[in-house]
């Protein structure tokens, strides 16, 4: 039998450093997830189905782990995407097409400090530059957990179909892929949380449809939310004083001056520079107020509004700002999807 001679002295130390270094490299190289590409059209007709394909990789796995695949998408709330989306995937680690399931709203995300998957995605991945607060993250997961083994490099192709609303809009979508154990905030192996998820921000999506363009991306003086409402909703009227050069760009106080048009053709004007009509300052030249049109215009039970027109004024009422910085009023028509 051949006798193995163990190194001693300086030689032993060399071997110890080599082995230790190898172990450290193995530990540092953890499972990383990335989205390589998202293929989706730049324009789509309102009411049709948007199909996008996500190509993702789960690479350099350093430990055996069993988790579900989780995919999140940032969408306009008007799409009601949680109820209008189907998602499936194929991967090099599974066989056949796997239909993914919607993660119900409120399901707590791992490593998210107790918040839901949807909120965690909003807090961590963000809003993709959309300026109107009418967006949401929806999340899907694979039907069963899958096992990844040490050394695996897995490719995943996810197909997403979303039936979009009729609304004429410009919106920035966003995608995130992660897994159900590490979520979006894991610092396992002392690695950055972003190691454990992949993101992709495709170019803006234009949905063509009737009516005024709902532009989520370009700063505008005022866009009422929600995009669809009746006079019995609460609507929020913002004023971004710096979006376009206008006489109220440096104003410290901004007031709402609005006219409601009833379905019978009457008009009701509310235009006093009082605290009830003053917009709340949000800082940075942004102001907003929320009104209940039925109460704001003092409608009787028999009256209902068809539309409103509105401008913003200073404290004297003499300086008026409307659409695109002119004195032409902004307009909003009531109606539901």
């Amino acid at each position, binding site marked *: 039998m051949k006798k193995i001679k163990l190194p001693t002295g300086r030689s032993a130390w060399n071997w110890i450093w080599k082995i230790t270094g190898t172990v450290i490299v193995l530990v540092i190289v953890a499972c990383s997830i990335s989205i390589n590409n998202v293929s989706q059209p730049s324009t789509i007709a309102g009411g049709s189905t948007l199909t996008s394909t996500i190509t993702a990789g789960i690479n350099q796995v350093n430990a055996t782990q069993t988790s579900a695949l989780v995919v999140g998408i940032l969408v306009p709330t008007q799409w009601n995407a949680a109820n209008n989306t189907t998602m499936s995937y194929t991967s090099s680690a599974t066989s056949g097409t796997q239909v993914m399931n919607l993660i119900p709203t409120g399901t707590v995300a791992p490593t998210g400090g107790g918040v839901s998957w949807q909120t965690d995605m909003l807090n961590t991945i963000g809003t993709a530059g959309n300026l109107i607060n009418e967006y949401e993250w929806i999340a899907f997961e694979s039907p069963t957990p899958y096992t990844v083994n040490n050394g695996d490099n897995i490719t995943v192709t996810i197909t997403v179909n979303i039936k979009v609303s009729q609304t004429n809009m410009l919106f920035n979508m966003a995608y995130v892929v992660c897994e159900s154990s590490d979520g979006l905030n894991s610092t396992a192996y002392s690695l950055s949380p972003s190691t454990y998820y992949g993101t992709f921000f495709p170019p803006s999506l234009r949905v063509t449809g009737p009516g005024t363009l709902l532009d989520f991306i370009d700063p505008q003086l005022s866009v009422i939310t929600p995009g669809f409402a009746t006079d*019995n909703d609460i609507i929020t009227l913002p004023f971004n004083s710096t979006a376009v050069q206008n006489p109220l760009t440096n104003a410290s106080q901004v007031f709402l001056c609005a006219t409601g048009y009833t379905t019978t053709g009457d008009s009701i004007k509310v235009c006093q520079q009082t605290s009830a009509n003053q917009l709340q300052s949000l800082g940075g030249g942004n102001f907003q107020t929320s009104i209940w049109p039925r109460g704001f215009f003092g409608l009787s039970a028999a009256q209902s509004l068809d539309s409103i027109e509105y401008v913003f004024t200073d404290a004297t009422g003499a300086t008026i700002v409307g659409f695109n910085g002119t004195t032409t009023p902004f307009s909003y028509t009531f109606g539901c999807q």
Partner: protein
Amino acid sequence: MRRLIKTNYALLLGCMLFACKIEHLNPPNEPMKNIAGTWGIINATRNGTNLTSSFDFSHFRIVFTDSTYTIDSLVPFIVTHNGKWAFDNPQYPFDLIFTQTDSASLETPFQFPVANGVRNIILTFSPGCPSNSYVYTLQQVN
């Protein structure tokens, strides 16, 4: 001797059998939910966006008695007139049913959690477009 052992076994078996008795467990009785009192809105969201700081909800009041309610409807709400209320199940309510005078009943999901030691009523409804969902959190006021 053998007969004595058999007798002992029979006695032991008898003791074991008669030692068993059916135990009747009475589960704790779930109390009826009492919402009588005057309630105001402490938090409101629309489609997940908090409206509490940008809209004045402070004047809204709804007063529940044993079976009726009165309302100051200064904000969008499930109902606009006074009437009667009921739970879908008084012990385990999932829905609160409002019946305005001379009107059909309107049902809304009902939650009754305790937060920071204070009982809340959480109501979810859509007074305008069905796509706009409001969640009001109510607390009792003096």
